[in-house]
């Protein structure tokens, strides 16, 4: 069986492994396996930061070795992302976890925060590895294989990063007004789709967090509820056993609730969050495409007004037209791929949520049924002893 590179942690159940069947336009046979683990704290005079171990196993010829182990920090991931965006402006680059978590009670370097980030980084690299184009990107290869000093020196080369600091491309040039007029229907549809999708996925993200919170509050109350029955049993004789039985049932249901919560936070919440980020990325990609088209359009308009230098212009326009066509095609292909992945992700994640809930209810059911049996058995025992002379 293949190791599924998409599960950042060990799969919980065999069923989730079976569900990892994927269909996509990527490499037919996976030949690149990446894991992100082992967060370590580094303290220097200037700063404290975390590095993660990135292990790569590959059979590809382009790689000198079949196994690599490097350490990377969050900054390095940011760098990689911006290089990919630069090289492929109309491809959908997977999201990175945010720099900070604004809301929520997670502190910057708490264990929970680090673990959440680690999983997201693992996801990020694997999504790139599975992308038909991005997987062969040179900067990607360097990221996976170069030693720390090699990476540093490589980073300093090449064109500056311009204003591409920050993990998501928010600052996009606004010269897209014109492009909207000439925008092919397909991309207008994409835009409309993304607007609604973005709205809905954000809502789902909020709902999922609300559910998590409600379940946690319920768990806390249940923790107090059970022991009261035990306390009561101390002043009773006849019904002490029944009371203790109830207390133990409630305790077991409490543990089942904890598992249910864990399931949410391990699977549903990260996926929804990832797609919230994806929706922002996609809006950005669409804008960039518009921008590229805008360049073409403005040149075409300029040509219409010029009488001389037509030849020069047509050559330029030819190049721009090519650029636009390449951009459109790249985006279209990547869009289709993204949609398929999204569908698969949503299906598997929500199915997992349902399974989680089923496990919870089945466990609670078994608990209460066994209590009920014990109570009716007692009754029959009493009956029998009464009938004896």
């Amino acid at each position, binding site marked *: 069986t293949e190791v599924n590179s998409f599960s950042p942690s060990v799969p919980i159940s065999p069923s989730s492994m079976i569900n990892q069947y994927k269909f996509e336009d990527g490499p037919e046979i996976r030949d690149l396996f990446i894991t992100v683990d082992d967060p370590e704290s580094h303290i220097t005079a200037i700063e404290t930061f975390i590095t993660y171990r990135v292990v790569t196993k590959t059979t590809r010829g382009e790689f000198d070795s079949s196994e690599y182990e490097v350490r990377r920090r969050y900054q390095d991931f940011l760098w990689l992302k911006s290089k990919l965006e630069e090289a492929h402006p109309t491809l959908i680059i997977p999201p990175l976890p945010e720099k900070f978590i604004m809301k929520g009670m997670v502190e910057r370097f708490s264990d929970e925060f680090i673990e959440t980030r680690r999983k997201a980084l693992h996801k990020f690299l694997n999504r790139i590895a599975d992308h038909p184009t991005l997987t062969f990107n040179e900067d990607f290869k360097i990221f996976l294989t170069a030693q720390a000093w090699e990476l540093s020196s490589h980073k300093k080369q090449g064109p500056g990063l311009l204003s591409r600091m920050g993990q998501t491309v928010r600052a996009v040039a606004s010269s897209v007004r014109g492009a909207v007029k000439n925008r092919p229907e397909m991309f207008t549809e994409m835009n409309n789709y993304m607007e609604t*999708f973005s709205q809905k996925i954000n809502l789902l993200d909020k709902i999922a967090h609300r559910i998590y919170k409600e379940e946690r509050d*319920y768990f806390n109350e249940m923790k107090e509820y059970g022991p*009261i029955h035990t306390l009561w049993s101390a002043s009773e004789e006849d*019904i002490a056993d*029944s*009371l203790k039985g109830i207390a133990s*049932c409630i305790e077991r249901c409490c543990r089942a609730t904890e598992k249910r919560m864990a399931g949410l936070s391990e699977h549903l919440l990260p996926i929804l969050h990832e797609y919230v980020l994806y929706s922002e990325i996609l809006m950005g990609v669409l804008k960039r495409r518009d921008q590229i088209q805008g360049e073409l359009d403005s040149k075409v308009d300029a040509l219409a007004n010029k009488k001389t230098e037509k030849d020069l212009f047509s050559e330029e326009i030819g190049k721009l037209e090519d650029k636009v066509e390449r951009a459109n095609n790249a985006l279209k292909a990547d869009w289709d791929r993204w949609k398929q992945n999204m569908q698969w992700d949503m*299906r598997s994640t929500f199915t997992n949520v349902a399974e989680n809930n089923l496990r919870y*209810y089945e466990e609670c059911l078994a608990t*209460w049924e066994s209590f009920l049996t014990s109570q009716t058995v007692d009754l029959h025992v009493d009956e029998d002893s009464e009938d004896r002379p």
Partner: protein
Amino acid sequence: MESTEPEPSGSRPEEEEDEEEEEEEEEEEEDDGALLPPKQRLAAMEDCLAKKMEITVSEAEKRTGRNAMNIQETYTAYLIETRAVESQSEGQCAPVESLWRRYSEFELLRNYLSVTYPHIVVPPLPEKRADFVWHKLSADNMDPDFVERRRIGLENFLLRVASHPVLCQDKIFYAFLMQEGGWKEMVNETGFQLKADSRLKALNATFRVKNPDKRFTELKHYSDELQSVISHLLRVRARVADRLYGVYKVHGNYGRVFSEWSAIEKEMGDGLQSAGHHMDVYAASIDDILEEEEHYADQLKEYLFYAEALRAVCRKHELMQYDLEMAAQDLTSKKQQCEELATGTVRTFSLKGMTSKLFGQETPEQREAKIKVLEEQIQEGEEQLKSKNLEGRDFVKSAWADIERFKEQKNHDLKEALISYAVMQISMCKKGIQVWTNAKECFSKM
């Protein structure tokens, strides 16, 4: 005050109509005692278990009227229906008789019973105001759900009284069920109010009893513990209910968003839409679940209030015992006084003694008169002490008998309540499994 302690059952020939046992115990009868506690209780029950009358509180109605101070008020009236139960073979159906009563009349009845039968653990009324509510429940007395639960509680109260071997024979109780007009006057004519006031004072007074019956002391501790633990349980249960409500209802939001999302999806649309529907079903299911749980809470509440009744009996014993001890003490001191006067020795300090020393001795005649008075008082006192002793012992005997009856009832009822709680949880789990199985199927088709 005439003695209102009822004699052992069977000695009131005019009380032909014994009220019916509670339904559950009726079933137990048919079951040939399968769920019954030891035979002793069964024997005691059979005497009033004549199945002569069905009692229900079948309706509740909002009324407006003027109260004692001529101020307009809104209140709820409850319809009490009774029907004599003929034996099945006759195939006749007796007519239903009915009358309306409001909560305050139930209160009056219960006060009368508590005062008149202080050795009985008198069944409690359902709560006057909604307590231990969680946020969705209204604390408003006019709220239809509250009224409905109160209706059930009042019916339960009547059935409890009707199945009590002693209480069911009370004339005032019978009149409460059958006689609409003039009932209040009838109750007041018994003069129980006077006893009620002094009883209230006694229940609240603090005093030290030197030799209480240990069993009653223990029982009082038990009733305090029971009250405390059930309150705590009910309070936390209400919070648990609140939280559970929250979990279920938030899932309802999935329904709405899935539906809106499905509009922009082609392949995923159907799966999303139908999954959303199941989320709505899930969210809606909590309402019935929690409503059922309220009945469980009401069962516990009854025993919370029963703890009060239990404590009242203990206090009555303490009061009688204290009274007895005071009377004994008084008698002893009078005897001593008498002796001192007779022998001329002053052993105990008394103000009279001092003043007579200061203002001159008494004459022999005066002393004789005093001794005579004291001797009379001592005689009276000894008779009173004798009867108080007897009363006290009778009280302890009959109270303890009722307490034993109560204990068995309590153990039986609470065990059943706990079992019914488990049954409710099972039902909730099964519903959950069904909904999420359906949802899972929809998701897997996305």
